[in-house]
């Protein structure tokens, strides 16, 4: 299938991009890596009048430390998550998740900001912003703002982004010496959307978990933090009894949707198995 005809504008600055969008309104789309948008255009699921290419905007690039955060520019490509030393040092959970994001050809083009903006509930990175307690920087017609990942994901493909707004960067709190992380997913084939995936970041004092954030993907309409499971672990040391309690708590945290291939009960079962395995690994990494 071929996309419907559209106009194309290459923005040099954030301001130009926002202005172009304001001019055309709902019929405009920002395009960066295009790994989700281009197939949607080809399938004519979307047919915008104007594509605003933001890939040449320098301000959206680069990874750097800023205070207690790592500022990851929205245009940071998935493959850079694997190669960028600052990410390996200060956001190792993202580096751990990156090899599971699709295939190399897609990782070469897809961007971190684009993935978070689309908020596909089956994607790795949006869910990891929750586990990391990241903040999302947004530029729009009414100026710039920062919003907690916890407040960003609203419903299926629906986020706190307003029409005409653009993600400029994601701020990730710097990884600390007393923290541990774990990530894994269950996919039928390597590179596929997972049946269930999970990433977690814990702050520990010896065996004791002082804080933990656990985020699942492919379990519902949005990336999902499992606060019930987190609560069973915080303040305790990681033992088989606590792990079982956390697994049991998932029933209250998750409500997987009906699906002909993976029934809700099966997805919940897989989530429990995955949580158990990841918590086991978290314990081993002490």
């Amino acid at each position: 299938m071929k996309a419907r005809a559209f106009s194309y504008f290459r923005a040099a600055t954030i301001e130009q991009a926002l202005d172009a969008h304001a001019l055309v309104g709902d019929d405009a789309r920002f395009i960066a890596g295009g790994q989700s948008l281009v197939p949607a255009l080809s399938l004519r699921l979307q047919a915008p009048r104007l594509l605003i290419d933001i890939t040449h905007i320098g301000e959206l690039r680069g990874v750097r430390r800023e205070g207690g955060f790592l500022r990851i520019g929205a245009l940071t490509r998935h493959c850079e998550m694997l190669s960028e030393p600052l990410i390996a040092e200060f956001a190792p959970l993202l580096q751990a998740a990156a090899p599971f994001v699709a295939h190399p050809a897609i990782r070469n083009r897809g961007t971190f900001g684009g993935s978070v903006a689309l908020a596909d509930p089956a994607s790795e990175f949006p869910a990891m912003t929750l586990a990391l307690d990241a903040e999302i920087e947004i530029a729009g017609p009414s100026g710039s703002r920062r919003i907690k990942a916890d407040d960003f994901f609203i419903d299926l493909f629906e986020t706190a982004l307003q029409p005409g707004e653009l993600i400029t960067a994601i701020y990730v709190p710097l990884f600390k010496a007393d923290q541990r992380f774990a990530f894994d997913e269950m996919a039928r084939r390597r590179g596929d959307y997972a049946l269930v995936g999970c990433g977690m970041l814990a702050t520990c004092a010896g065996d004791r978990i002082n804080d933990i954030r656990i985020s699942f993907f492919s379990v519902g309409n949005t990336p999902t933090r499992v606060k019930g499971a987190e609560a069973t672990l915080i303040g305790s040391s990681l033992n088989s009894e606590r792990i079982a309690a956390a697994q049991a708590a998932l029933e209250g945290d998750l409500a997987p949707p009906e699906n002909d291939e993976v029934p809700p009960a099966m997805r919940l079962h897989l989530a429990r198995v995955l949580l158990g395995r990841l918590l086991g690994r978290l314990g081993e990494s002490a």
Partner: protein
Amino acid sequence: MSAPLTSLDRPNSYIGRSVPRPNAKRLLAGRGRYVSDLKLPRMLYAAFLRSPHAHAKIISIDIERARALEGVHLVATGADLAKICTPWTGTLDHFKGMTSSPQLPLPLDRVVWAGQAVVAVVAESRAIAEDALELIEVDYEDLPVVVDIDGAREAGGPLINPGSANNICFRSQLDNGTVDDAFAHAAHVVEEEFSFGRHTAVTLEPRAIVADYDPAAGMLTVHHATQTPYQFQDLYSRHYGIPEARVRVIATDIGGSFGMKLHVYHEDMAVVGLSILLGRPVKYVADRIESFVSDIHARDHRVRARMALDAKGEILAMDVLDLTAIGAFSTYPRTSVVEGNQVIRLIGAPYRFKNYRASLEVIFQNKVQTSQYRAVGHPIACAVTERLVDMAAAKVGLDPFAIRAQNVIADDAYPQTSPTGYRFEALSHQACLKRLHEMMDYDALRAEQAELRKRGVYRGIGIAAFVEITNPSPAFYGVGGARISSQDGAIVSLTPSGEVRCLISVTEQGQGTEAIISQIVADQLGLAQEHVKVVTGDTEVTPHGGATWACRGAGIGGETALRAARALKRNILEIAALILQEQPSALDIIDGEVVDAATRQQRLPIAEIARIAYFRSDTLPPGTQAQLTVGHHFAPQGYPFAFTNGIQGCSMEVDVETGFIKVLKHFIVEDCGRVINPMLVDEQLRGGIVQGLGAALFEECRYSETGQLVNGSLADYLVPMPMEMPDIVIAHVETPTADTELGAKGCGEAGTAAASACVLNAVNDALTPFGATINSIPITPAKVLKALKRF
């Protein structure tokens, strides 16, 4: 010490040698010329509006706005094309009692599956054509949808074809020996009901066609990504009323076919008609989304089967019912009942028992048509047989190898007739079984499995013996009235420079047909392989033949090339003998030189013979007419089919908490008769096995209750990928057929035939400690977890 000399040590001995395929470099360098690369002057592009309903009446079609769009040249409906194209019916006479409704390029008043093409638009570009599709309005009235086998068989349920009594396409029965008696007196009976999901070919290159009708010459040229150009030449000629000699079908480079590209598709027939209506070339390339809803699907069987054994584990009888659903029509011109027919005839094929009963029921439903796809019927027949054999082994208390060794037809007992009536010339089950046992290091695998089970790791080991049907004679289609040739033709010429050109009717889709043909010609003539040019796939250039399907390329195409090359060699040596004043029998050709047959002393380059024959015939004795172009046709005689055999094995691990399966290693011992190019045979086996593993673990066309394909994209329809595929270990046993000089049978489907059966047996083996069983393919994590009652 050097090894003793073999036939491979003779110069130009290419038969049996792994030589690279001559076209590989060209294709890898991006120099392939596929239909989608083709741009003809004044060419237009077609796109199709497809039905969103699985079954509906067409009330009205409004094409006015589409027709008015700038850049649109033609909007055609079923009625427009019905004026110039005669309908076709997918039945054959030798399938007694089979029915199917007549088909047209586009429907007149009713759609019968979701995705069926309804209206065609031809425009300056594909994008404009798709713009126009959005402007067409079709008013439908929903009709009851029949999607599953039970719904289709329900008495008084909705009918797919109005005027018919039921949704049955075809019924067949076999009853040999005394089945009831054997079951009544059996010491053991095992029984199971199996289901096999639909899957589809997913060729790298989708279907593609450019039809170019020249009204001035009354000539139709079709560039077509097909395995069978002659079949389509015949069909386009007859259905559009153009003399056959004025229809030219060119099959250029093809990116995979697997049986999918030899059926008549409605869009392809429509494109020919659109070109005739416009008098301009029209191109259509199916995109992936369209391929999923319009390429043929395959399998979709439910089989209930039981097996009777005596106390020692000797198989006494089998009794089988195969229900298979094929879509709303039977495919043209090869029908959609061949798969079911082969299922009931290949079941039990490796074994000695004589009492066999089978019923086949082929059923219509509101889905896209199923038809012949790689290893037609074999994976089902093999899985049913081999699972029952494993169940029987467990019941009798025998090892899977032991029960097979006890029951396979002995290698020295041929010829044999199978319980279903197939005649086997010579197979090698015992040799293959023995070789596989060694190759797998079976006893060590079993010991490791037992050890790991103690640690909560569940490995499974599965084996599956198979028989593959190849080299079909006219008994396959010809007797049923289909104009599908079982013979092939070759024209072999010596060029004026002393090289050889071979025009042959078998075709190339990436498997290396051209490579083996050039090997055979070079070998037989005594030339370096690079001096043989092979040309395939153009009905105006290459002689008429069956082309490529049912693994006939090597066995029939290869024999045709061999005999043509020998005939040309005789003619060359006749001229050489005249020039050299020798007897032809005293001469031979080695490396392009005529030599003394006894001493191998060089006498004359064949280039010199060509020069004299073509440019200085005046120097030859009076009355000599050099015949340096030879045409030869070969049709298989003797056995109606060649049969190959083999056995596969696999080792895998099941994660009993997640239901995920990891295939650790796969093994095959295969007997395809004479091996022409071991590298290409191994590639065919590996590719076939991967396709079989895809079917076993991943691939399934899933439908909703309303008949919508719910996973029709490559994101959702899971084809096997390298990360999930195991290493594949291959060994060969060679039992050449005596029906041909070459002795080759065929190898393209052997891998697919038994891979899924092997996996089924291995998974069930892994689940034995839990008392859980699986009887359904593909084996998904959901099915494993269900069997283990984990959710």
